[in-house]
């Protein structure tokens, strides 16, 4: 579904991603793990299109999208969420979701007709709000949401674009155990219809959800495979999981 071929990105003299070759298969939850500064968020940026690539190619469903604009990638079914919550803070939950629904359905170059007349946009936004556990919170302004709710909406905004592949950048960042459980449950529900590339530090969640795991260290993929194999991989244990990790 997604193929990265020898993808690289430098910021000045700093190599952020280095010759990354990776495949995400249709229908899987593919986890991307690695220590801080390994280049995970940079790689998400390159795949989603907010960052250009210095070398290599990105193929999405067989099409070369290396140079496609980010909004075009989203419309072709490739969406992302952010590690640092990034939403329309002064808008309500419902308006945030309706915007994402609008982006996908029909032209936005409509200047006269009020959006409020388009019931389907808001119906679908309400459905998504329910799916991410924000039913009853639709009228709340985003800035007033609790952290866990904001994280849920962060993922919800990506889902509202109806992606076939979603790139989730640490969806559980800063969450308490209960909120994490809700997020894991949400990902369990969507995995049947959406392929997921999951960047996550919560190893418990990673090994529960992932079909396959890739390990990024200093911008390079040092291992890729089934969770059990990754746990046992000596280089991974040394570089990332630490010597005390239990296999």
């Amino acid at each position, binding site marked *: 579904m997604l193929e990265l071929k020898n993808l690289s990105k430098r910021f000045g003299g700093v190599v952020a991603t280095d010759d990354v070759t990776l495949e995400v298969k249709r229908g899987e939850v593919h986890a991307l793990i690695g220590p801080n500064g390994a280049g995970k968020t940079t790689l998400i940026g390159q795949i*989603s299109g*907010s960052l250009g690539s210095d070398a290599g190619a990105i193929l999405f469903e067989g099409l070369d999208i290396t140079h496609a*604009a*980010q*909004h*075009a990638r*989203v*419309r072709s079914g490739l*969406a*992302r969420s*952010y590690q640092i919550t*990034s*939403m*329309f*803070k*002064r*808008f309500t939950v419902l*308006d945030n979701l309706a*915007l*994402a629904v*609008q*982006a*996908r359905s*029909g*032209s*936005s*170059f*409509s*200047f*006269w*007709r*009020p*959006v*409020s007349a*388009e019931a389907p946009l808001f119906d679908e936004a309400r459905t998504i709000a329910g799916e991410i556990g924000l039913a009853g919170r639709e009228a709340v302004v985003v800035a007033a949401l609790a952290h866990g709710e904001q994280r849920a909406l962060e993922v919800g*905004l*990506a889902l*509202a*674009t109806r992606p076939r592949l979603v790139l989730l950048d640490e969806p559980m960042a800063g969450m308490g155990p209960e909120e994490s459980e809700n997020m894991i449950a949400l990902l369990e529900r969507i995995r049947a219809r959406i392929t997921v590339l999951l960047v996550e530090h919560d190893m418990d969640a990673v090994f529960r959800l992932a079909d396959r795991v890739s390990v990024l260290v200093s911008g390079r993929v040092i291992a890729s495979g089934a969770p059990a194999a990754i746990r046992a991989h000596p280089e991974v244990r040394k570089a990332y999981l630490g010597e005390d990790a239990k296999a």
Partner: protein
Amino acid sequence: MGRAAPWIVLALALTFPLAMQAEHQTYYLSFASRIFIYALAATSLNLILGYGGMISFGHAAFVGTGAYVSSILLSEGVASAWIGWPAAVAASSLAALVIGAVSLRTRGVYFIMITLAFAQMVFFLVNSMKAYGGDEGLSLRERASLGLGVDLGSDFAFYYAALAALAAGLYGLHRLAHSRFGRVIQAIRENEERAEAIGFPVYRCKLVCFVIAGAAGGLAGALLASHGKYVNPNVLHWTQSGTLMMMVIMGGAGRLWGGVIGAAALLGLEDLIANHRVDWLAAIFPNYQQHASLGVGTVLLAIVLFAPQGIAGMLARKKHA
């Protein structure tokens, strides 16, 4: 504003000339037309600055382009407003398309500076057009003609033409703000990166918004030239762009009535200081009436400090309290 407020304002604006005519106060009729024209220009800037979050410091370029194109046509004998004004709008849209296409590739301070630079380029271009008056400006024998038995030469008729243009501009902004496009523009203002990440073509949306604002600014320019039967390069000077920004910020950026309130407040204040001598002030500052901008600046400062949402924002807050 409440539901009734716009209608009350409109009714007052419609009956104002009758009262003025009874009192033989044509000065204030002409002054009100000027406010309407500046209100339209400020409203067009409000669309990009207040709704779109694009801090353009070159809006005078579009107002000035409209003013000059309509004036040049008039001086060449094309008297009809039905040709002159659409031509002004078309030229300003084109200018906005070109300037926007380049400027909107930049962000923040760079965007402010590049729009300013483009506007100054147009300013110097017009300054060097000796055939059309150069730096001395261009006097017009008469205003554009509307036909239909309406004589725009009379301040009475012109007042209603300016009012109609402003009303159309405001209604257009109201519709646009609640349309799909308007919501995208406001989403881009809130979070440009995320707007792109949920699938909006951010650059194209901003450019279209910029062109719409340029078009409305061009119409304001054409009206301004006809109103004073005179145009000079100062209409394109960067201080004009600054004045329009002040109007939007004073009135309320991103609020429907922001441009109107700002234009009325700023021009009204200037007129008040210049034409109504306050004796005790004059006793302390003998020449204060020649420094109206000092007074305007003080008020602007107070508004930015105490009512950051502008006068319109302050009024809205009061209503909710």
